[in-house]
């Protein structure tokens, strides 16, 4: 047996390790690691000045800013909306609750291109909702607000689904105890409930932010895609590709990939911290 005790921190009892481990690692290497490292390798082939020119082009830099700021605004708004929905879904028994509970997952289930097309039509000056804003000269679809709304739509379930279970597990006894001690409702929410929601909120918001940064389908169909104004970085990569400028596209993609992997690893480290912090508190 090739299994050494250095490798196993606990001796494997069940059979099938070689099979499942071997196939899993092969799958992950072929599907995830190989293509991602190919991108970095391909980028490293180009010289530093060329790389720098590709990623620091003013139009590209503007797209970083558009993407990051829109993702930030949408994350703030979606955190508030998500918290509200999670709260009413887990606290109150009202007519239509089950329907809404199921509908919250719609943005996950609905293809992003459909979401983009529909929101754009809805919010365009002649659309069901857009007409009310057109009267005041406010442009939502094919402009920056539309971009933010598309991101809000696609990331809504992240917040609701990470906060809801915590609220459901949070028994009424804490609130009752706080009430007997003379706390007001606002005090109870701010001092008792909200602190225990922070880990779930941070996780949900981080997932929403990461998703919004990479969102493409919903965004391209609604944003109008004007350079320097509503052009996101994902679209910039796409534009460079359609110009057959593979090197610049890869350079920008490498920057995006490095940024999102950094965010992912930071989130996982944070989650580890939060979990141990919660366990200590319990």
């Amino acid at each position, binding site marked *: 047996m090739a299994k050494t005790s250095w*490798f196993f*921190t606990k001796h*494997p009892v069940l*059979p*099938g*390790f070689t*099979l*499942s*481990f071997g*196939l*899993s690692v092969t*799958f*992950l290497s072929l*599907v995830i690691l*190989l*293509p*991602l490292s*190919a*991108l970095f390798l391909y980028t490293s082939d180009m010289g530093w000045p060329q790389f720098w020119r590709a990623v620091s082009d003013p139009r590209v830099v503007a797209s970083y800013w558009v993407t990051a700021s829109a993702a930030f605004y949408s994350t703030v708004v979606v955190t508030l909306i998500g918290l*509200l*929905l999670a709260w*009413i879904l*887990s*606290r109150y028994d*009202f007519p239509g609750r*089950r329907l*809404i509970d*199921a509908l919250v*997952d719609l943005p*996950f*289930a*609905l*293809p*992003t*291109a*459909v*979401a983009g*097309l*529909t929101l754009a*039509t*809805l919010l365009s000056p002649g659309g069901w*909702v857009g007409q009310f804003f057109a009267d005041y000269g406010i442009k939502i679809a094919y402009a920056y607000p539309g971009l933010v709304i598309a991101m809000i*739509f696609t990331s*809504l379930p*992240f917040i609701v*689904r990470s906060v809801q279970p915590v609220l459901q597990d949070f028994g009424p006894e804490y609130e009752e105890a706080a009430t007997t001690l003379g706390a007001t409702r606002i005090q109870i929410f701010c001092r008792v409930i909200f602190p225990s929601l922070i880990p779930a909120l941070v*996780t*949900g918001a981080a*997932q929403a932010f990461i998703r919004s940064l*990479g969102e*493409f*389908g919903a965004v391209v169909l609604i944003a109008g895609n004007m350079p320097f104004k509503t052009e996101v970085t*994902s*679209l910039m990569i796409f534009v460079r*590709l359609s110009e057959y400028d593979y090197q610049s596209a890869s350079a920008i993609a490498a920057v995006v*990939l490095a940024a*999102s992997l950094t965010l*992912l*690893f930071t989130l*996982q480290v944070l989650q580890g911290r939060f979990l141990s912090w919660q366990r200590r508190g319990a």
Partner: protein
Amino acid sequence: MQKPRGWQQWSLIGLGLVLVTLLLLLPLALIFAKAFSGGVGVLLSNLADEDMRHAIFLTLLAAGLTVPINLVFGILLAWCVTHYEFRGRKLLVTLIDIPYATSPVVAGLCYLVIYGLESTIGGFLSARGVQLMFAWPGIVMVTIFVTSPFIARILIPLMQAQGSDEEQAALTLGASGWQIFSKVTLPNIRWALLYGVVITNARAVGEFGAVSVVAGAIRGRTVTLSLLVEQLNEDNKVIGAFTAAALLACMALITLVAKSIMEWRLAKRGEAPVRAAGH
């Protein structure tokens, strides 16, 4: 859970209902209103269109290949990281998550770089008459990438909560590895597994960003339903675009119903609610 009392609670609910109506219900209603806006005859002729039929076929093909492949490897991954303690286990779990954090366009580009015609592998294969990128195999490959975390991510918490006690008991009774899996593990995870399949399928059918990079959008050949929505919209064929969108929305609604039923089943069995956060 309580009945709402007082105006504050009712106004919170009211605000929530307004937001849900604006963000979720109105868009959904709009899709079907637009698809039917030309009457049923137009809808049917749109559906019978050659490009539309091919897009439906290609979408089903991509989902039909992606789901079984990710099912098998999702189970293997989840089994591997929950039933053994070894060095690098956490790293493996982190690797599973990478596709979540990767922008679909970036994912598509990665595949283009390694399997495209200019690359070593792509050049080697194309000399032998196999074309991966700008053809259906490329669509399947990136769809597998994008949907690879779902099943493993849903199974891992469940398998962790269930532990290996039952499997170990089966082992002492002389069961083989396959018997342990099919008779002990599988019945325990079957609902979660089905749930994972439904979610993987939904995302596989709807993937847009990654597919649009590797598909090359050759009309009648590499256009999936999601891509067709965009193409018809750019051609100003609004009703056609919304017909394709309505088909995808039906798939989404079926997904939601199936998901709700399975969540209800899982809750009834007393299993941890496997909300798939993070996709």
